[in-house]
């Protein structure tokens, strides 16, 4: 199938700003799904609230656009009640890690089989450019007019500590890597986290004087490096890209089947 076959073109044009990175994520996520040859009927996409969360409306899967921060909790109900379905949960950085931070760490801890894609543009775009838990110290935002003093999370470290069994990072510049990582994340049996650095030229870019969308994407090229590269050793400030964690651990729904057996409820 072509990527277009996964789209609900009735609902286009999409609502993202010109230059937004989220369309690139949508495109490459669909390319990843295409290579996996999954039936559209077997995919459920659950999202919360924010620019990134609107992604679910545009794809021809079972789509659940929920409330702010709670997408993983809704997805947990879908997955546990029908474990054979493939769950993909695209989220923004604020959605996933501010209001949704608690659900994020608990979904990771359970190792429930779903793929969380964090589209990290370091800002609340939908509401007009307020700082998020990933804006970072020193950033400018409409609610940090005198410079942000909040430290940010490292999504990879947080995910590892919370128990995610697949953790990766890529950017909207590195589209082939992004597609490959999303494909592996979806195939992974357990809780997968993929952080994708995605530019918001309208708010984060403008407020932090980062130039155009192209300038911001070029910066992803310049400020990131493959995991463990020589460049990273020479310049520790570079952000690593690639797969950080990929391990087998008991998956939640599979474990619950054992609970049913122990309770004598097996068919």
């Amino acid at each position, binding site marked *: 199938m072509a990527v277009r076959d996964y789209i609900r073109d009735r609902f286009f044009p999409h609502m993202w700003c010109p230059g937004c990175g989220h369309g690139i994520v949508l495109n490459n996520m669909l390319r990843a799904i295409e290579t996996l040859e999954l039936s559209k009927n077997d995919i*459920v996409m659950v999202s919360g609230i924010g620019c990134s969360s609107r992604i679910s409306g545009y794809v021809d899967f079972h789509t659940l656009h929920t*409330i702010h921060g709670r997408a993983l*909790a809704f997805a947990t*109900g879908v997955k546990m*009640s029908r474990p054979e379905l493939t769950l993909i949960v695209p989220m923004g950085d604020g959605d996933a890690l501010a209001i949704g931070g608690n659900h994020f760490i608990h979904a990771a801890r359970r190792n429930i089989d779903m793929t969380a894609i964090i589209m990290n543009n370091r800002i609340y775009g939908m509401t007009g450019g307020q700082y998020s838990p990933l804006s970072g110290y020193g950033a400018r935002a409409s609610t940090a007019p005198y410079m942000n003093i909040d430290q940010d999370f490292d999504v990879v470290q947080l995910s590892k500590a919370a128990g995610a069994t697949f953790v990766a990072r890529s950017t909207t510049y590195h589209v082939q890597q992004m597609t490959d990582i999303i494909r592996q994340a979806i195939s992974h049996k357990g809780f997968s986290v993929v952080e994708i650095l995605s530019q918001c030229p309208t708010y984060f870019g403008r407020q932090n004087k980062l130039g155009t969308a192209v300038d911001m994407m070029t910066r992803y090229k310049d400020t990131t490096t493959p995991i463990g590269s020589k460049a990273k050793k020479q310049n520790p400030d570079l952000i690593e890209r690639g797969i950080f964690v990929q391990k087998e651990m008991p998956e939640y729904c599979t474990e619950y089947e054992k609970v049913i057996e122990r309770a004598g*409820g097996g068919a």
Partner: protein
Amino acid sequence: MSENIKFIQGNEACVEAALYGGLDFYAGYPITPSTEIAEHMAVRLPQIGGKFIQMEDEIASIAAIIGASLTGHKVMTATSGPGFSLMQEGLGYAVMAEIPCVIVNVQRGGPSTGLPTNVGQGDVMQAQWGSHGDYSIVAITASNNQDVFNMTVHAFNIAETYRTPVILLFDEVIGHMRERVDIPEKGEINLVERLKTQIKTGVDFHPYLPREDGRLPMSDFGGVHRYNVTGLAHDMWGFPTNDPQIVHGLLRHLVDKINNNVQEITRYKEYCMDDAELVLVSYGSTARSALHVVNNRRKRGERLGLLELQTLWPFPYSLVKEKCAKASYIGVVELNMGQVVQLVRNAVDKPERVFLINRIDGVFISPTDIRNTLRVIQGKGM
């Protein structure tokens, strides 16, 4: 036969009724005085191949049951005061997206952390008005464990019939009291199963286009119809819209599907009402004390009656007006500062004849408490 007779808590009766009604997915978070519901679910659900999950909080609990409902399961969560407050946004989502689910609130004393282990009935207004925006909700209660069973099954039937969240508004006394419950045989109580669409594969399915009778056939997530579900105002495909005409129609539909079916939804009981001069109106555990007073006073020749409301929302205004038409006085017995009493005043012709008989100190109201207030109402002094 004796296996079907149990001596159990109200919370346990609620669990058994939910299973009888077809529940096979439960998500919850421990909170007094509802915790026994989660504990019994954790034991009982895997025994029948169902699923139980303890979530990280009440917000996640209501989210999880909504997700599971969409795959075609009958679902429930249970909580109490603070947890019910946390669930309000999810409740509004279930209203807007029209997801069948049952939410139990075993009421305790409030506000805030309040009196976790004591009884209260202070969440009646919150049950209808707790989430933001305009909507109608169904809230049901019970005064004994057999009724807990029957009303729980009724709640699942209403949730499926009208594609709506239904609130079971029990209280601490009912939840923790042990009483005899006769578990009905399969088929003894009618069960409403989910209305599924007959639309074939490949034909455009409109998940939010009501039929002429107002009902919306569903299609399970994982099935052949892929559609969007959102808490945003949406069109017949479930896609977000700001179109004023569509938004107006959606809001009207959400309210009308409940408010136009008050008679079908309403359950109540009446005792000695035919010639009652003084009518007591009550619900939940307090109806037990009210009934005790009615039976006692009747023996002395006083014309007391009891109207026990089992459906609190949509409030049965016509029923209350009709039943109270001949009463000289109406006393509303409840464990709050006066919530249902306001609704009763709105329902009757002479609101100045409606009095509140209450306690707000976490102590269950006794027949003596009620009788003392009645003496004041009847001008007999303290």
